[in-house]
């Protein structure tokens, strides 16, 4: 009877977990160009860590994540149910753990570290830098899916269809981080969730006060079965205590207990902390030091051009608000959005940057802003997005074959969606021919020209973040820009494809 019930409960939890996991994967797959419904980032909207840490770091409430208050309230009532039932990272770890059949239980606990990491995140956010992306499980999972799984899957799909496989410039660090998190399962099941995850830490903190808790009633004969089945090591049967901060409400102990002395019930009590003062102070110290260190360890200007996607908020805010989840890179139809390595400093690792050599920013697409869960890239209407200047194209006349070799190339003019490149007759070394010129007032820096420049090596037309516009609020459309765009292209010479009659 007990075994049967256990099985049913176990299956029920698995089904719920798999349901949310599949939902996460569905939203991941649906993060693609062409969908106007803005639901792909729903998981992030329920992530209270985003609400807390980013709101503090950015000194503004992240309205998109306000839904996570529901989870906070739920945790205050029911305990740490998110970790056991919903968290897709938890499910991924569960799946991996069951594959490696990790049953070992080491008698040491690092469970306080998750509070320390949480404290570190909050302190560094107070100082003005968010390090959330390194630790938030949803962000880690989404990023790993996008940068590792997606290129692999799209490669195989590409074998059978015309789909161009996605490529990303920086995946190795993501892979290592993800592999480490999974391999922690060799030490103990759910090692990450129990010891390191700051989101788990946040829920653990809340569930210390939760209304419902799993706890012992009178009559325990200290058989120890419950401690053996607990997946999070929350039970100490000798003292008949269940640490509600560690308990993920899976109810296995309740159904496994031969004496039926474990109950999930209303229990108003507060579980005390046992964090050492030294650890506490170290964590605060690390938080205080990390913010300034991350800015000076690697200077952003050391590494190449940094072109942010259109609608990105000002850089200092961007680094705090972006959770580096990689959704924008997944959705970008040209594959031009790539993860930064050190172009934006240490804390800019995995933030999106437009690498025009791989793909430009298409005029008719504003998907990156649509899927961004924290509005680090603002969700601009399509028309407004076309007015955002993210940089300016610059022609290298020494390498351009129209300038240097008198070729009728002009592909950049052809590729420009904004008529910002004019082909004008210009005499060079005695030869008069059409040569490309960039009108920097009209150029938006979309990089479509750079993507198509046919010469070998680096393109002869490159986008630099000259004149880039980053606004937290307000419209990018101005009367001046409208006027410039409306006026007919005055600077246009007759293409050299025509043989002109000398009239």
């Amino acid at each position, binding site marked *: 009877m007990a075994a049967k019930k256990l099985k049913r409960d176990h299956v029920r939890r698995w089904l719920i977990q798999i349901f949310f996991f599949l939902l996460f994967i569905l939203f991941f797959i649906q993060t693609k*160009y*062409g969908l106007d419904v803005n639901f792909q980032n729903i998981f992030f909207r329920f992530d209270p860590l985003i609400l807390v840490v980013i709101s503090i770091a950015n000194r503004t409430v992240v309205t998109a994540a306000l839904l996570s208050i529901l989870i906070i309230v739920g945790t205050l009532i029911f305990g740490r149910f998110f970790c056991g039932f919903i968290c897709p990272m938890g499910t991924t770890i569960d799946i991996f753990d069951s594959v490696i059949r990790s049953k070992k239980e080491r008698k040491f606990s690092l469970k306080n570290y998750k509070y320390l990491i949480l404290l570190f995140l909050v302190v560094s956010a107070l100082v003005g830098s968010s390090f959330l992306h390194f630790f938030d499980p949803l962000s880690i999972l989404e990023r790993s899916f996008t940068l590792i799984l997606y290129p692999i899957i799209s490669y195989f799909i*590409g074998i059978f269809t*015309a*789909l*161009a496989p996605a490529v990303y410039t920086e995946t190795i660090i993501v892979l290592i981080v993800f592999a480490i998190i999974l391999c922690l399962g060799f030490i103990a099941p759910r090692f990450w969730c129990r010891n390191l995850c700051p989101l788990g830490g946040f829920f653990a903190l809340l569930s210390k006060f939760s209304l419902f808790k799993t706890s012992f009633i009178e009559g325990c004969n200290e058989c120890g079965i419950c401690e053996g089945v607990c997946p999070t090591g929350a039970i100490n049967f000798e003292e008949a205590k269940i640490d509600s901060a560690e308990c993920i409400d899976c109810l296995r102990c309740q159904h496994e207990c031969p004496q039926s002395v474990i109950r999930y019930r209303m229990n108003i009590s507060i579980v005390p902390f046992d964090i050492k003062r030294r650890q506490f102070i170290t964590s605060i110290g690390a938080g205080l030091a990390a913010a300034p260190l991350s800015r000076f360890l690697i200077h952003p200007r050391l590494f190449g051009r940094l072109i942010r996607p259109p609608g990105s908020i000002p850089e200092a805010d961007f680094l705090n608000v972006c959770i580096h989840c990689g959704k924008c890179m997944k959705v970008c*139809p*040209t594959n031009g959005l790539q993860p930064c390595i050190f172009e934006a400093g240490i804390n800019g690792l995995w933030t999106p940057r437009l690498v025009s050599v791989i*793909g430009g920013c*298409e*005029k*008719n*697409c504003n998907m990156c802003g649509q899927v961004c869960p924290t509005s680090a890239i603002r969700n601009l209407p399509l028309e407004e997005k076309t007015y955002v200047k993210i940089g300016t194209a610059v022609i290298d006349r020494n390498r351009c*074959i129209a300038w240097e070799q008198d*070729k*009728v*190339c*002009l*592909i950049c*003019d*052809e*590729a*420009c*969606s904004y*008529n910002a490149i004019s*082909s004008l007759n210009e005499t060079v070394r005695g030869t008069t021919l*059409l040569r490309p010129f960039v009108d920097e007032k009209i150029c938006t820096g979309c990089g*479509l020209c750079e993507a*198509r420049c*046919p*010469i070998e090596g680096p393109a002869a037309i490159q986008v630099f973040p000259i004149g880039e516009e980053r606004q937290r609020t307000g419209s990018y459309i101005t009367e001046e820009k409208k006027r410039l765009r409306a006026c*007919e*292209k005055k600077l*246009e010479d*007759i*293409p*050299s*494809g*025509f*043989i*002109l*009659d000398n009239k």
Partner: protein
Amino acid sequence: MNRITRRDFLRISAGIAVASLLPRFLFSTEKEEITGPVIGVAHGEKSKLVKSAVDAIGGIDKFIKEGDKVCIKPNISFAANVDCGATTSPEVIKQVVELCLDAGASKVIILDHTIQEAKLCVEKSRVKEAIIDKKRVSLLTLTKERQFTESKVTQGRELKSIKIAKAILSADKLINIPTAKSHSATGVSLGIKNLMGLIWDRGYLHRVNLHRAIAELATVIKPDLTIIDATKALTSGGPGGPGKTVKLNIVIAGADVVAVDSFAVGITQWYDKSFTGKNVKYIVEASKLGLGEIDTGKMQIIKVEV
């Protein structure tokens, strides 16, 4: 039995000679000397243009046989709005597909190697509206090198060999349906220029003598029928737009791609100037290569008003 006398014979012969020469003196026309390519030009109601133009040159059955596998090459290279004129209008593509299916084509493949991102081009050009029969009509965006195969250009000076789409090699017929638009490098982009969407490395053509290379391309890829969509023409700012778009409501059809192009140059002004086919370098090069007739005076132009 009447025997023809010598006198009778001479009289009759003279009569015939005079009779045959008379029209020359009476009407003094040179129409009969025109033996050049036939071109159908339809103007008017959008929904009938393609059929009228094709009927003028002998009807679709002349080009498509029962059971043929047909490739259709529209220009959907840019993710521009259909009103802009940078892409072949979906109505025209659809009409061509209908014609092919009516003629009994077993398979119709609409294909292009787009310049901008394929997904966006497909969406913006609304080309999917032309897929009226999912079993027989399909859309193929050429995005990968392995969809192309190396092909020798025997008449080539600029091109020795070029990678062209495998799909057109395995098809029985190729119908070329460009849109009439201006082009920043070649002046205009019409039928021959549209063939650049069937090769892998377009950039290479820009690195050599572009005009000649486009003409040489037409020696390798030979469309069986070219139908130019001039329902609207992007007369400046091409090939991607935005620019000046003129509504013409014209469709031009013909088997000779050079002739069709040459005629199409004259139907409107480009960059606010008038040109003829002889003013466009790549058309001149193509005619030099013997690919078709460039002189509109030598073409049989059949104009239809619908």
